[in-house]
């Protein structure tokens, strides 16, 4: 009875400054079971798995692996306990080879304590054959595609013969064939008795392959469903806790105004081909598609961050030859998806981060910043968006994900944009703040601003967009109007099936 479960996580709690990520979560996974873990952005899935993987220390709770108490103080402990982790974002070292990444910190030793590269290469080849991969052991990981990098991570996890395998959003960058191959691999693993934890936003996949599913919401377990109980609508209602229509603002009354942004024949070498679209005042254009299909490059090219050919005009002004500074002044803004690395300046305060793109508006003679005006405008935005901070001089690094996202939004609002390009509006944002962000975006459009929204969150894409452009292979392959699209249709288009 005690060994029925490969893994038991009991009462796991974790709080980060400003946000309670997990509040007493129980998770039990049986041997040989494929256990789905679902929940909205910020529900706590990643935090829970990071606890299991030793990357985060819980404030409370116990972990039992096959009935025995496990103390996981770091990734090495987790590995020793038989936990394998395939991360959402590539967690590999680009300067090293496939072989070196797969065997890092657990290299095979031959005689005299030397590295036995041949043995390691052979193991990789063996696994290649078994899994259907085609990885060259000495290829540089930095040169591989995202899908191939994921194969490397899976290889690394499996080489260690894990008892528990965690996969975080594994199919985001995969095409249909690769997805099927992954499912075959997982099926084989579970037959061998490995417990698999499968985190995904793609509910159809979870419904298809999971034996049981646990739903997280706001850092707590809503419930665990047995195989026969698993159904998409049930999952959604558990995840969301309310009718879909309530989270997303009602935009049925919105009629778009004049054309603000015109993009004609945009070409980014090797990434985007002949892209043309327009954005009208008060409109939300949603952009969807699989990872790496050129959407991000397109958006960044429109903003001027990426070299491209084609024509871009904003409210009649041709911006094709202009740099980013000029485009910002003309009324174009771009909010990056990567808050940490290219969004916020973590060494600066809230107010200084917020005014960073609008300095051209807030500077007086001799280049002196009009501090009073700056602070007044920032304060106004903070109140308007309900950003929770001790003061506007607070260091931005200590804010919660949701508040940080709002500070970035505030930054762009301060530039008085006409069109705002938003890349992943709610990445890493907890549920409470997400509704708030949606309301803000909605109110922006009612003030006449046009929004282009790139998102990998299907619910968000379907719920918020007035129009949806689906990308595949660097082109828009399908356009859907509000109400026309469903999750299945969008996924089909995103996979290149029309």
């Amino acid at each position: 009875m005690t060994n029925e479960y490969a893994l038991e996580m009991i009462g796991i709690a974790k709080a980060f400054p400003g946000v309670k990520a997990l509040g007493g979560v129980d998770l039990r996974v049986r041997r040989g079971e494929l256990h789905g873990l679902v929940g909205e952005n910020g529900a706590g899935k990643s935090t829970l798995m990071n606890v299991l993987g030793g990357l985060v220390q819980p404030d409370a709770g116990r972990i039992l692996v096959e009935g025995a108490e496990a103390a996981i103080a770091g990734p090495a402990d987790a590995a020793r306990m038989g936990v394998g982790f395939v991360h959402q974002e590539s967690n590999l070292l680009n300067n090293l080879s496939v072989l070196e990444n797969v065997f890092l910190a657990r290299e095979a030793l031959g005689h005299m304590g030397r590295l036995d590269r041949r043995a390691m290469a052979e193991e990789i080849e063996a696994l290649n054959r078994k899994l259907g991969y085609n990885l060259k052991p000495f290829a540089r990981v930095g040169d591989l595609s995202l899908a191939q990098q994921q194969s490397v991570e899976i290889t690394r996890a499996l080489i260690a013969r894990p008892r528990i395998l965690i996969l975080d959003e594994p199919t985001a960058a995969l095409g249909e064939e690769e997805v099927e191959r992954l499912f075959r691999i997982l099926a084989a693993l579970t037959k061998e008795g490995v417990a698999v934890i499968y985190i995904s936003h793609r509910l159809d996949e979870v419904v298809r392959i999971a034996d049981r599913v646990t739903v997280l919401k706001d850092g707590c377990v809503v419930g665990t469903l047995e195989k026969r109980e698993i159904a998409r609508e049930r999952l959604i209602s558990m995840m969301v806790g309310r009718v879909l229509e309530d989270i997303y603002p009602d935009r049925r009354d919105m009629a778009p105004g004049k054309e603000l942004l015109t993009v004609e024949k945009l070409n980014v070498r090797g990434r985007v081909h002949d892209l043309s679209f327009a954005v009208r005042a008060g409109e939300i254009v949603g952009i969807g598609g699989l990872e790496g299909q050129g959407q991000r490059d397109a958006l960044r090219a429109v903003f001027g961050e990426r070299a491209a050919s084609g024509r871009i005009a904003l409210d009649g002004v041709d911006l094709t030859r202009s740099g980013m500074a000029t485009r910002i002044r003309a009324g174009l803004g771009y909010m990056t998806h990567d808050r940490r690395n290219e969004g916020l300046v973590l060494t600066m305060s809230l107010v200084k981060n917020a005014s960073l793109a609008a300095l051209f508006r807030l500077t007086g003679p001799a280049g002196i910043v009009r501090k009073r005006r700056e602070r007044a405008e920032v304060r106004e935005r903070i109140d308007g968006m309900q950003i929770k901070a001790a003061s506007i001089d607070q260091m931005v690094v200590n804010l919660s994900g949701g508040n940080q996202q709002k500070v970035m939004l505030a930054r762009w609002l301060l530039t008085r944009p006409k069109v705002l390009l938003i890349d992943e509006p709610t990445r890493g944002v907890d549920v409470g703040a997400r509704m708030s962000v949606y309301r803000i975006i909605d109110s922006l459009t009612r003030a006449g601003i046009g929004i282009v929204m790139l998102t990998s969150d299907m619910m968000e894409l379907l719920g918020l967009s007035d129009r949806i452009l689906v990308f595949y292979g660097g082109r828009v392959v399908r356009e859907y109007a509000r109400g026309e699209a469903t999750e299945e249709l969008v996924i089909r288009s995103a996979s290149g099936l029309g």
Partner: protein
Amino acid sequence: MGAKIREKFAATPQLFSVLTILALLAVTFLSMCAYSESYKHMQNISKLIVQCIPLAVVSLGQTLVVISGGIDLSLGATISLTTTIAARLMNTDSPAQIALAVLAMFAAAALVGLLNGVGVNLIRVPPLITTLCMSTVLQGVALWIMPVPGGKVNREFATFVMQKWGVLSMPLILLALAYLIIHFVLYRTRTGVPLYAIGKNPRIAASMGVKIRSVSVRAYVIAALLAALTGLLLACRMRVGDPLVGTNYTMDSITAAAIGGTSLAGGVGLISGSVLGSFLIGMLSNMMNILGVDQFYQYVLKGSLLVLAMIVYSIPGMLGVKRVAK
């Protein structure tokens, strides 16, 4: 066949830099052979090689530290320190005491490396400051041991260490040994790959289970030991100890590593490149001496060479698709 070569290049982009230096070395050497009489004599070539070896040895160590993402500004002072220890303790005819002296040199160096490693990894002071302060302290200690160049290194021992046979010499053998050992450590033990890993991205490396602190300390210790070997070579060549002899070696070792394709950002580098880089620097100095170039112009040329090397290395990068607008 072509595909295999391309693959090998893709795996180690630094190969490009190594080959470049090799080509430069060959060109320099051949042109000197044509121009100068002295190059045609075995013993002059041997002398030239021996002159380059001390820098090559210490560059090996600097390369390791830089690959791991750090930098060691105390290697020069370590060299000076070990020559003073040598000159103080090797002024004797007893082989046992000489052996002890060698042991003392390497033990002192190991301690220095350990302290550097601790300062950087445990006390968390940036490598630049840690090794800089260590350099100042060691310089003081060296001057305390020997305020002016002096002491004496036993003649037989010194001759033994510096002996030559035609083109070959003991220093060359020592360099080769050091190179082979470091090569072994870097490419055949569990210390090697983690060094590259922590230099590239310590966070990811840690999440994959690499013990960052332990690996980093090892790099500093090995570098210091190599500095001690350099000190041994210099002490035997000069037959005295000199508290200031190592001063230029710090920057030169970094220059040699940079010329050899090691990136100061970490995670990238080939020790063969650094060794070749040191030889290139030594050979160019020698060439300029023979050509009667003003000693002072050599500074200008050394600096320009480095800039040139950096430009050449950035060419492969520039040939890649230019994706980002200004």
